[in-house]
């Protein structure tokens, strides 16, 4: 049934959420049955915030966000339940044509940039203007071109007038990603979903793109959902974090509290496995085992086979934990999180995570 999520009344500041996802479930039809890629997730996104969505491959993070705009090809993917309320409208209930008015306009999406995210036979500029012309028929070519060049400049592409007429293969990876962001911003969206935007980029370029995203949040007042498997990026950029595992949200908190006091065993495992400059030498800890198959999903808590907090307890094996309120906007899906909360914070070095943030991650 419905997990308990922070309702608008809980939210400090009381602003109505921009996006409200409730009980979203997505399954994939495969040869041997169905894979429950996303299982009954719910969360809110407040206007102007950067929500980090972190999880490993197979956790359902990309699938869930692509489903907001119904971008998953419909066989084999199928949205089996839930609602996605964007400023009051349920996106899942819209027809394809109605939904198209949101795509690229109210909600924009940026993908990981393997070289083929942009059409190789069209100039970058024309692809940006297309994004505008599709939603505004009356826009003249000159105006569209001018705005596109303006956008390229905004995202930090040097010599934008020249770059406008160039082809994607003439751009470097980082510049292509900037161009994609420019394209996404062209219709002044309220929400930008960035799916692993930096994964394919060099570390230095990564930092630039992350800075760009933060600038966009601040100056253009765009809310951002940032999907990544790299928890270090979350630490740098996100305001709030959603941790996903095996198709479910297992923990959600503000970024400070999450790093200071992670309450889900999985999150703890993730944080502990980060290499740290201040840690003594030795083997890097890792979470034993593998993520489970979701065809069908395991009974009870999906993490229980790998969880030492569980230690084989019956309840973990049979009962699926709901997101429980741990105080201060912090929610955890674990039956026994209280035991962790009442103990000292973890970490091989025994230092609180806040210190790591002060030092700044070498990312």
């Amino acid at each position, binding site marked *: 049934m419905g997990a308990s999520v922070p309702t608008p009344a809980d939210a400090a500041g009381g602003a109505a959420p921009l996006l409200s996802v409730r009980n979203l479930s997505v399954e994939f039809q495969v*040869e041997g049955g169905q894979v429950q890629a996303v299982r009954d997730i719910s969360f809110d996104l407040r206007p102007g915030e950067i929500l980090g969505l972190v999880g490993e491959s197979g956790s359902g993070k990309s699938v869930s966000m692509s489903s907001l705009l119904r971008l998953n090809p419909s066989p084999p993917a199928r949205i089996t339940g839930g609602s996605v309320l964007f400023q009051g409208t349920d996106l899942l209930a819209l027809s394809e044509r109605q939904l198209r008015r949101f795509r690229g306009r109210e909600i924009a999406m940026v993908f990981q940039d393997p070289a083929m995210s942009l059409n190789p036979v069209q100039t970058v500029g024309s692809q940006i203007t297309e994004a505008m012309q599709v939603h505004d028929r009356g826009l003249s070519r000159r105006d569209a071109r001018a705005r596109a060049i303006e956008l390229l400049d905004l995202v930090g592409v040097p010599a934008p007038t020249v770059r406008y007429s160039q082809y994607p293969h003439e751009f470097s990876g980082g510049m292509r990603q900037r161009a994609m962001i420019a394209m996404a911003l062209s219709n002044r969206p309220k929400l930008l979903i960035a799916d692993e935007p930096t994964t394919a980029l060099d570390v230095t370029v990564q930092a630039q793109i992350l800075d760009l995203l933060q600038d966009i949040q601040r100056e253009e007042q765009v809310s951002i959902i940032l999907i990544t498997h790299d928890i270090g990026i979350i630490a740098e950029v996100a305001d709030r974090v959603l941790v996903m595992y095996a198709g479910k949200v297992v923990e959600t908190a503000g970024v400070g509290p999450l790093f200071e006091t992670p309450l889900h*065993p999985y999150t*703890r*495992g993730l944080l*502990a496995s980060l290499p740290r400059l201040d840690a003594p030498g030795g*083997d890097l*800890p*890792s*979470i*034993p*085992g*593998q993520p489970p198959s979701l065809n069908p999903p395991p009974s009870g808590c999906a993490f229980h*086979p*790998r*969880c*030492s*907090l569980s*230690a*084989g307890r019956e309840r973990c094996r049979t009962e699926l934990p709901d997101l429980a309120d741990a105080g201060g906007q912090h929610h955890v899906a674990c039956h026994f999180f209280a*035991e*962790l909360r*009442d*103990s*000292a914070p*973890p*970490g*091989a070095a025994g230092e609180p995570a806040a210190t790591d943030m002060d030092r700044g991650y070498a990312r």
Partner: protein
Amino acid sequence: MSASPPPDVVIADTGVTGPPASERRPSWHESPLRISIRRFCRHRLALASLITLVLLAVMAIFAPLLAPDPPNAVNISLYQQAPSAAHWLGTDQAGRDVLSRLIFGARVSLTVAVTSAISAGLIGLILGLLGGFLGGWVDSVVMRLTEIILSFPALVVIILIVAIIGPSVTAIVVVIALTQWPTACRIVRQATRSLKEMDFITAARATGCSNLRIMTRHILSGVMPPLTVVLTLLSAEAILLEAALSFLGLGVNVPESSWGGMMQAAQSLTTLSTLPWLWLPPGIIIAVAVLAINFVGDGLRDALDTRQQT
């Protein structure tokens, strides 16, 4: 601090709990060959086609046992009879039983097809390996050669050469091979070039393998899958070429005649309209054989596709 400290979730030394043994993956391995065979058998169409081809081969091999009459038994009194109980597919203008000729025809058509395909494949393999692996001027020469040969319409060149050296079975096989090897060569060359860049080749070089050894041991096995697929293509093409040659009266001059040769008489409009049993059966059986080969080729291509995992 509580009296009994809760188990530290973070692992490392002791108390590591992994998934229970029952949930771990089985450790037996499947060789790529078995995986490919299994995937091939899943294509029912390809499997049925393979069986069809085997049946055709059996028919060719055991022709003397299967054919009701000798294929060359001329008997003018039985001239041009429609299909009947005695002659299931009727008789031709010389009174020969069409069904028997059809069965024996398999021998010629299939032999020519298989031998020329294998020959073309061999030539293409060697040249493709050399060109793809050695690169440089060797590659340029091989590429130009393939382009030149592929520019000529195969049928016409074959006709020309056969006109010079005479229409023996060997000649036709050789000439078909000479016009078809570039197709195999292109595929082998492409495969070789992509394999050459892979890390396991660099590793082999680092252990001191000579070029020849790398080519024959490492690249050859990697090139086999696409080559097998190409071989099916070549066989199909060879059957069609031989049939067209024989139909035009320029093919093998063996008395039994191939399937294409049986259709030669249909060039006349009267024969075409009045004696359909002469030319329809061989045409249909050619189409069936080539279709089966093509389906098998498709099945092979899917089964050997290294990008898929199941």
